[in-house]
């Protein structure tokens, strides 16, 4: 399948279309509302499903194969804020707190973007390392920690661990529900292996794509409500929201290639690097960097970078990975 038909088939996938429907519902102020607990239920489901599948894959591949690319992914995540922060400070003219906050979001990752990428690869029959969700799990926290330290003024020596908000945030970014469910389910998947998978497949695998579509409908509504904020964030952040994922994604693909991942696996590492967190990072950053304006980071991550990645970014990084493998 060539690049443009890949983009087209990606745009016409139920998941992307439901995201668009959600934006439409928000923009037209429809009375459609997801009940309060549906969103967190879907989040729990998706994280467990993805972690469990990754664990079963690790069980099969062996930890010896997984550790190197996982360590590489983790390192990349922790490094991204280091160059994102100065760019935001000096070219974007953001405050220390805001630059740190945005850097934390872009170094961390988005599970749903990752899932959309695996769907894309499946739909075009591109094999990939199924243990790649391990990368997702280890990339969530490091950037949050680095970004928060930068936002607290670490470069000016002002960072202190005794700040209550910081402590809460760091605990949450390490023991938070995202990491706990992903890593926990991954260990469970690795321990219970293929036999365990056979028993829970009817819940965690078969309905998965449809659940994702439902989740993206809600994400679309949340993103749609933020569309009005696009004016507030300014042109620089708009540009950043598109160019950062292209840059980080390319770096991720390259790194994936270097540590020996297949075309599919390198695509996924690219997508992870390109993605910006809008669940774990916002919560942790809000608690530890209250001076940062969440409109900047959330609007960029959710209303610019996320839509870019699930529509154009994923096929793009795949194209790149293919070229590297020729």
């Amino acid at each position, binding site marked *: 399948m060539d690049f443009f038909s890949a983009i087209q088939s990606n745009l016409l996938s139920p998941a992307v279309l439901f995201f668009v429907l959600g934006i439409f519902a928000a923009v037209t102020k429809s009375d459609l*509302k*997801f*009940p*309060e607990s*549906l*969103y*967190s239920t879907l989040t729990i489901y998706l994280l467990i499903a993805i972690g469990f599948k990754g664990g079963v894959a690790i069980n099969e591949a062996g930890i010896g194969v997984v550790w190197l690319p996982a360590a590489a992914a983790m390192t990349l995540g922790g490094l991204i804020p280091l160059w994102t922060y100065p760019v935001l400070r000096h070219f974007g003219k953001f405050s220390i707190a805001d630059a740190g906050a945005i850097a934390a979001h872009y170094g961390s990752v988005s599970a749903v973007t990752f899932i959309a990428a695996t769907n894309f690869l499946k739909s075009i029959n591109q094999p990939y390392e199924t243990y790649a969700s391990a990368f997702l799990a280890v990339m969530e926290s490091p950037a949050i920690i680095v970004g928060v330290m930068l936002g607290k003024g670490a470069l000016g020596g002002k960072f202190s661990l005794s700040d*209550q*908000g910081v402590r*809460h945030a760091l605990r949450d970014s390490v023991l938070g529900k995202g990491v706990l469910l992903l890593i926990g389910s991954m260990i469970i998947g690795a321990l219970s292996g293929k036999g365990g998978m056979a028993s829970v497949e009817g819940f965690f695998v078969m309905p998965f794509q449809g659940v994702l579509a439902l989740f993206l409908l*809600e994400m679309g*509504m*949340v993103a749609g*409500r933020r569309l009005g904020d696009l004016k507030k964030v300014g042109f620089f952040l708009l540009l950043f929201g598109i160019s950062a994922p292209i840059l980080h994604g390319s770096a991720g693909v390259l790194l994936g290639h270097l540590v020996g991942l297949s075309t599919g696996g390198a695509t996924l590492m690219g997508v992870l690097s390109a993605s910006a967190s809008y*669940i774990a990072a*916002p*919560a942790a950053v*809000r*608690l530890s960097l*209250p*001076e940062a304006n969440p409109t900047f980071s959330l609007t960029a991550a959710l209303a610019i970078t996320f839509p870019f990645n699930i529509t154009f970014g994923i096929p793009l990084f795949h194209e790149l990975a293919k070229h590297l493998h020729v």
Partner: protein
Amino acid sequence: MSLYPMKLVTIVCEAILEERVVELLRQAGAHGHTAFSVRGSGNQGERHADISETGNVQVEIIAKPAVAEALLKRLHSELFSSYAMVAYESDVRVMRPDKF
């Protein structure tokens, strides 16, 4: 039946702050609290409850006047400037004053 005056402090804030607010009210000397998820609007715009990340929580505390004052003071100095929230105090009457 005698009733004893007590203060009711009501706090509406970003859901993410619940744990911190509870810690703070314990430190201020309150012996209990009641909390529930709410949505709303204010200076910081609309807050929808379909996503807990954007929702609010309402925390209600019955306490002695001195504790209520200490609590409000700490809310004011530590949280008011940084987060979307409101807090207010009112008069209530209880039957078992030593419980609070």
